[in-house]
């Protein structure tokens, strides 16, 4: 028995190196810790732990500011990209990223992120997009898709009354200053692994000083969506995933269209199923 134990190799660590404890205040079935794991693991894999400064917005994920083992600034609601701009300009050798939700970035601070992208600030902005204000009770945000039920659109979002959703990733990809724009998702293990690679590429773009990088991650919020936790991933694919298409929207100055991303996603899903059938995802 002892000889077989020594052969066992750790494939997946319980905690990312940059997280102090596994205890957190997120609801069961929340997608934000999954996105955070990818972000923190890519920072430690790239060897940036000692010179990374995080800027957190306001949302559920803000409670991770107590347990993340990084220098961290807490910004006002929606103002994280502006704070990050200041930090990066004063400390050009540091790696600066912001952590924001859709309510924080798209409702409160749309102008901050658009101007930071247009100026081509050399920072990385991370958006955790679940289509609701999770922290304050699950009401509608600007990214809530048409027909989605929230606390203040109980019959579903109606375009004649509530307006149309803002696709922030597509919007930022149009700006000259944006060097890398990607939209990930955490609806299954394969997409979590793919999103982790997007984080890695975004930080590499910042290390090379190419300009603004942006990673949007679609996350589950079963509490805000009034659904059982187990139905969260499928619900997300059927609502948010149908409108906010997963994929790399802008790489090396080339903007990819929704149709191209759709075709890529079909191929990736088939590959991932084969990988899992073989018994392993190598990230």
């Amino acid at each position, binding site marked *: 028995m002892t000889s077989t134990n020594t*052969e066992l190799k*750790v*494939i997946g*660590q*319980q905690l990312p190196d940059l997280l102090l404890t596994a205890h957190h205040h997120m609801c*069961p079935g929340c997608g934000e810790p999954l996105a955070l794991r990818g972000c923190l693991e890519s920072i430690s894999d790239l060897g940036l732990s000692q010179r990374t400064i995080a800027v957190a917005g306001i949302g559920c994920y803000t409670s991770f500011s107590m347990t993340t083992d990084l220098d961290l600034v807490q910004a006002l609601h929606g103002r994280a990209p502006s704070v990050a701009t200041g930090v990066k300009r004063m400390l050009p050798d540091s790696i600066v990223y912001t952590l924001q939700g859709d309510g924080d970035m798209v409702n409160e601070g749309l102008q901050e992120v658009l101007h930071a992208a247009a100026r081509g600030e050399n920072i990385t902005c991370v958006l955790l997009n679940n289509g609701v204000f999770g922290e304050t009770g699950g009401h509608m945000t600007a990214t809530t898709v048409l027909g989605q039920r929230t606390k203040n659109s109980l019959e579903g979002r109606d375009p004649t009354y509530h307006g149309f959703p803002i696709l922030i990733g597509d919007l930022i990809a149009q700006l000259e200053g944006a060097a890398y724009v990607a939209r990930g998702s955490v609806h299954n*293990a394969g997409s979590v692994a793919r999103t982790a690679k997007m984080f890695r590429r975004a930080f590499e773009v910042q290390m090379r000083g190419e300009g603004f990088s942006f990673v949007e991650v679609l996350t589950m919020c079963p509490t805000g969506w009034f659904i059982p936790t*187990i139905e969260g991933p499928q619900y997300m694919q059927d609502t948010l995933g149908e409108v906010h298409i997963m994929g790399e929207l802008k790489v090396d100055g080339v903007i990819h269209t929704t149709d191209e991303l759709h075709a890529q996603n079909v191929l990736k899903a088939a590959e991932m199923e084969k990988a899992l059938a073989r018994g392993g995802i190598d*990230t």
Partner: protein
Amino acid sequence: MGLRLTCGGNTLSAHGTVIIDTEICKGCELCIEACPPRVLTMSSVVNRLGYQYPELQDGCTGCAACQLFCPDFVFEVFRRPRAAAATTKEQS
């Protein structure tokens, strides 16, 4: 208050195994669906938070899908080289 860790059933013939930190699990059941060989089942008892937690049955492949997909950082995944696992299987 210590953490209770469970290591699943018959791991000798399996390619991989997981350690489950049951006391921090919030019982969301995402891992049950995420597991490709379907070897995780929910417990009939609850942890001190009052949630059911996953238990490992025989047949883990060590693919780490549960660890990637767990919002509460419950899993630690181990894998054994394919050759070693096959030899053990023949012996048993």
